[in-house]
């Protein structure tokens, strides 16, 4: 697939939850495109809707108490391409996922859009060997023979740099370390050659050295397989290292987006800037000064303020900020930003190092 063409287009995605206190819109009008071979990072603090966005795309939100709005469009661009014996039952062209039926989703999930979860310790089924679990996914999505599936499973484990894959496929998840389990999860997600990989905080539960290995591995795999990666994190160091484009979310809304260099060098939204300023860094430039923080807390989704959602924490707030919410419009830099008074000047600090 040529790079640069979108594989996934999200338009006006709103995810709502029915609660005892009324309907809560956890993700409000989120739109973005994901191109082949691109890494899109979604950043924001806890509860800003990152995970809900990713689960909405996979349609993994519980149907009992949540729904996507009628205007939500999640379009997967299905282009014919050579796959390893895939059971291709999806029609070519645009496939709308936000309101797709279950059979369509069963073909899309795993085969076209795969997902890695945050907690590698519980993401693998403890009663089956990892070989069994890889085989199961391959059996479901490909026409490979038994031997072919086994060969592919071993190949995938080798690809994610697990030593002795021939022996390892007979092992159970509890025999593997956290980092190895996450590698197996990546193998499991990539074994059917998906176009999009959604990684929901894949390194948060791992220790720092393993985090770096996993990130290097994912970057390498992206380059080799041309998979688009949607990367969800609150770790800006990881974003600087790994992402091509960044989507900053706050209170369920996109507040700024753009290429990673621009976001780090010329953040327009006061929230983005405050977020970058709050990264502790090595060197004696900041010694003796307290770490910059953002005052206040994220507003409750049940009781959102009328105007800009960041207004009561914002240092650049003026009267009209609390009256009407700003739209996501091109800012001084040309990149979309949701602010009446965005920053014009570049930020002095360098992008954060790997953390």
């Amino acid at each position, binding site marked *: 697939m040529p790079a640069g063409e979108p594989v996934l287009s999200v338009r006006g995605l709103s995810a709502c939850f029915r609660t005892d206190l009324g309907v809560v819109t956890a993700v409000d009008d989120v739109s973005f495109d994901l191109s082949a071979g691109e890494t899109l990072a979604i950043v924001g603090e806890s509860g800003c809707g990152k995970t809900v966005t990713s689960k909405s795309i*996979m349609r*993994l939100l519980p149907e*009992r108490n949540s729904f996507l709005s009628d205007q939500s469009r999640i379009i997967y661009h299905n282009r014919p391409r050579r796959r390893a014996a895939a059971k291709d039952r999806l029609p070519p062209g645009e496939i709308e996922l936000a309101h797709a039926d*279950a059979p369509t*989703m*069963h*073909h*899309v*999930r*795993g*085969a076209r859009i*795969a*997902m890695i*979860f*945050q*907690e590698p310790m*519980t*993401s*693998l*089924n*403890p*009663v*089956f060997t990892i070989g069994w679990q890889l085989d*199961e*996914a391959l059996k*479901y*999505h490909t026409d490979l023979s038994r031997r072919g599936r086994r060969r592919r499973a071993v190949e995938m484990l080798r690809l994610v740099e697990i030593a002795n894959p021939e022996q390892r496929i007979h092992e159970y998840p*509890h025999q593997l370390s956290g980092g190895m389990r996450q590698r197996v*999860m990546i193998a*499991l*997600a990539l074994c059917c050659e998906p176009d999009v990989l959604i990684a929901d905080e894949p390194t948060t539960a791992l220790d720092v050295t393993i985090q770096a290995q996993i990130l290097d591995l994912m970057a390498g795999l992206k380059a080799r397989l041309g998979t688009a990666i949607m990367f969800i994190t609150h770790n800006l160091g990881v974003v600087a290292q790994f992402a091509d484009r960044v989507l900053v979310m706050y209170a369920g809304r996109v507040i700024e987006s753009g290429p990673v260099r621009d976001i780090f060098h010329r953040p327009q939204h006061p929230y983005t800037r405050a977020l970058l300023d709050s990264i502790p860094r090595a060197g004696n430039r900041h010694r003796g000064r307290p770490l910059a923080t953002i005052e206040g807390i994220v507003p409750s989704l049940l009781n959102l303020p009328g105007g800009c959602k960041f207004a009561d924490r914002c240092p650049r707030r003026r009267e009209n900020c609390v009256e009407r919410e700003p739209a996501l419009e091109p800012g001084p830099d040309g990149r979309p930003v949701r602010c009446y008074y965005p920053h014009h000047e570049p930020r002095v600090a360098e992008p954060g190092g790997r953390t």
Partner: protein
Amino acid sequence: MLTGLKRAWESRAARKFRRNRMAVAALAVIALYLAVGLWVLSVDGLKALGDSTGWWNVRSAPLVDALSTEQAGAVVGPLEEPGFGIKPRPEERLTAVKARLDDLGKAFRLRARGGEDREARIRAALAEINYGAVRVADRPVEELRAQWEAVKRQYDTIAESPNLDRDPAALPALRDLEAATAALFTEPGGVRGFLQDFRLSLGTDRQGRSIMVKAVYSIKVAIQIGLVVAIVATLLGALLGAAGAFFGGWVDYFVVWLYSTLSSLPDLVLLGVLVFMFTGSVFDDVNRPYLSLVPLYVAMCLTFWIGPCRIIRGEVLKIKELEYVQAATAIGFSRLYVLIRHALPNTLHLMFINFSLLFIAAIKNEVVLSFLGLGVKSGTSWGLMIQESTQQVINGFYWQIGAATAFMFVLVLAFNILSDALQDAFDPKHVG
């Protein structure tokens, strides 16, 4: 398959289990019980097959035929004789002799009717008499009759003795009488003799049936009931509970409503009602003994699924929130597939524990129900044996209740030890 077995044999849990001597012994006992149960079942099957096709008459092979439904109901000796070769009291020994002499006397008193050959009729009647493998001696009728009359006179002299216990001459005379009576019959030798000893080893019941054969035969009944009820109830409970927890909504409401309603009724009352419901139906037919256990199965399965259902519902409620279930959904599997292939296998340990608990509970319930007259009606089971022995216990005859209780006790104890050991061996929290 073979590598899988090898892996299982060498696994940590299996090694831990093998170190536990009691558990291995319990496993051996259970295996023995299962083997006996299967043996009885297959002998009955062979018999039915032989009777309908004429392929092989099992009755010609005494060792194979030793344990079967037919043998469990066969008269093998005097009534209420103690086991272990213990001699009963002199009066009872005299009664036993009299019973056999009377049986012969009935045959000799037969009269020819309408041109029949009287001697042939008597010979046929004599051939009918049997106590297990003990049969009337194969001699001419006249000779046998003379001998019988002599023994009868001998009996009459002893029977006149007012007090057998105190008369010093009575005991040797009684011994002579018994020898003379035995001479009227052919004692079996070889395999048949050994089998006769085996049958009398725990004595006989009120109808002269072998307590040993009945007790061993009842293993089949117990295992049949235990296996059927435990398997059906565990699977039913697991499926309902898992489906309720996994799909939630009205499915869950229905499952919870069902088991709450059922469990609000006392178990035994419900079982009694269900068994009464079946009374007089096809399942109560003497000609179809193989159907007689069905009411018990149905009644117990209907009440026993509640336990596993509750436990597995709770476990699946927990499991479905775990990430591997979400991950399985993210791979593209349908919800039903995720439930059956990912959620249910993770409750296997609970199913095993529930299975072993229900197996025992079913066996114990069968005994209780049979004792109350609601369980096994025709045939043999430990419960029926205990019920029969209520009157015997008053008379100081403990062989039947002792045998039934001991057989049941060993099985239940072995199962408890085994499930305990399995829990220890497989519990991941007690590694080492």
